[in-house]
């Protein structure tokens, strides 16, 4: 006979999270899919089943433009973040010594303030009267127009927002990496470049891919950064979705856009997960076995 205490523990630790996920993740997702097949007319939901919203998304170039803009930005931001994260994470792991933990915790400092607050401060930094252009104007130089209300400004903001996530992921991966392998490779005559390309990079690829995805997925759906910094030509897909659910009241179209984004994100996750070996992500510690 099963121990009642064990049964209760199992319920608590398995059923509660499962119910939470069903209530707040699965059901809203189902609602979103249903809504995407209905229509909105003059701010009212018309419960008639049709694929009109998906046809609109497929035929109206505007939404495609938003999506492509978001996609390119997400790829660019993620690649840049990975490229910047590697040296930072590598430095902390190799030279952090006993301050490794503190240095890695410092990466979380930006998260102590809200996203909107961080974006507004960045707006003040990059804007026409901000720190960068203010200094340039003071020394008699022309302001940098490309960082004022542009896709470049959004790029900088997104890197700023998600870089800590990527650094942390790569750091955790490198933390579990056995650096004796690099010494062995060097002893066998490999130069530093070869050691990196043939030992360090491939054995930390899983962690890097996880970091890339942790940056790519939220960047693809970003709505706040382009809203504050993107300027008139910086509207991204996520911002357009927010607009459908906000001022324009075209919820059904917004729901269809959300479903498309969800499916695309799932497909990307699926493709990238093929290259991920969880034992080498750095999260399990199994990479040392």
């Amino acid at each position, binding site marked *: 006979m099963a121990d009642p205490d064990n049964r209760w523990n199992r319920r608590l630790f398995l059923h509660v999270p499962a119910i939470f996920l069903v209530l707040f993740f699965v059901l809203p997702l189902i609602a979103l899919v249903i809504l995407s097949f209905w229509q*909105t007319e003059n701010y009212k939901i018309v419960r008639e089943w049709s694929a009109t919203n998906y046809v609109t998304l497929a035929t109206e170039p505007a939404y495609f433009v938003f999506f492509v803009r978001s996609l390119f930005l997400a790829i660019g931001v993620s690649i840049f973040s990975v490229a910047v994260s590697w040296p930072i994470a590598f430095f902390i792991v190799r030279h952090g010594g006993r301050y490794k933990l503190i240095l890695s915790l410092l990466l979380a400092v930006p998260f102590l303030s809200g996203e909107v607050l961080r974006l507004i401060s960045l707006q003040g930094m990059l804007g*026409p009267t901000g720190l960068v252009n203010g200094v340039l104007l003071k020394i008699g130089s022309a302001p940098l127009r490309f960082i004022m209300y542009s896709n470049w400004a959004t790029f900088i903001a997104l890197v700023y927002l998600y870089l800590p996530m990527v650094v942390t992921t790569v750091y955790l991966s490198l933390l579990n990496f056995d650096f004796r392998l690099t010494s062995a490779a060097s002893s066998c005559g490999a130069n530093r470049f070869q050691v990196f390309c043939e030992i360090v990079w491939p054995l930390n690829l899983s962690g890097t891919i996880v970091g890339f995805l942790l940056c790519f997925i939220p960047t693809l759906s970003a709505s706040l950064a382009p*809203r504050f910094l993107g300027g008139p*030509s910086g509207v991204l897909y996520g911002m357009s979705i927010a607009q*459908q659910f*906000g*001022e*324009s009241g075209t919820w059904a179209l917004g729901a269809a856009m959300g479903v498309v984004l969800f499916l695309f994100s799932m497909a990307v996750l699926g493709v990238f997960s093929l290259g991920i070996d969880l034992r080498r992500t750095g999260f399990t510690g199994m990479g040392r076995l």
Partner: protein
Amino acid sequence: MQRTTINRRSVLAAGAGAALSMPFIRPSWAQAQTVRALMWEAYVLPDVVSKFEQDNNVKFVATFFDGNSEAYNKLRVGGAKEFDLVQADGFWPQLYFREELIRSVDYAHVPSATSYLPEFKPENFKVLTDAASGAKIGYPFCWGAYGITYDAAAVEPEKTDTIACMFDPALSGRLSTSARFEENIALAALLVTDRLGSRDKPRPDGKPFNPYVLTDEELGEIQKLLVEQKALLLTRYQDNPTLFQLLQSGAVVAATEFAQVFRQLLTAKDGNPKEDFRHALKMKEGGLGWVDTWLVTSGVEDGPRLELCNRFIDRMISAEVMKRIGETAGCSTTIDLRSISSEEDRKLYLMDRSSEIADLFMFDQPSSPEKWERVWSNVQAA
């Protein structure tokens, strides 16, 4: 067969669950002690609200929105029973009343209503009168326009006589508009219909010209115009503080706005030398106007709750509170404050120009939000 036993752990778990859910359970007797308002955040004066709460032994709960469509969506989704009071402007109260989201009101129960400026007295201000029944459906609160605030040192005042000023390539990179799609399209509609000469032709709704009711041809031209304008804009500002900074720094020299930033610029106490900021209320093609109102939802029945709502509105439109709201939110008021205002304030808050509201096109619901959204998306994607 399993036996259900009540042990100490299950009692503790049940107790904890009940305790955690208590804040979310509202007994019916507690509901009467709350006044719930769906309103613009700029109109909240914390000390006025606290005083009202103390005097009436109630709790005031405010939910904020930005644009009318957002409030309309919230009201429809939540149902009129979720709120007691709601704010709206332009012709939106008429829509709310048609859809039975708000109820009729009686000015006799709100003593401060006797102090309205002539244009906003119930017998003159027809926007808040139901045409079918003649019933009054709300109380005017603040008013304004969606005009052009400009730095006269950089923009010749004559240029702002026309909306074309906001489409002038000579001001490229120094212009800004708000991010609100309805007003961007409606303002461009005034320019386009003036150029096309289509205002006097039969309109889609069979009524006189309204920049919120447009033909497909007009919408097409508006889209072209807004795409051209996009290249001239520094940004579409999201909030007044951003526009304030842009105008004050000189990065932007002309912007469409509700005259609130204009007043903040003139009254700013930051020690910076003031530029020559001016505001064009109405251009030769026409202008957009708004009157913010207080409405009582249809969920409020006659009795104590309605009396509470009337008392709150009476407090909010009292001369003393309205003066402070004008200063805080930077808007003109519908209550006559001339006897308690300085000459400078009379000019700044357009107290002697309230009659001009009659010449402005009131904010309204777009004839087809779906078509307008498409136009706006095309502009944003171009």
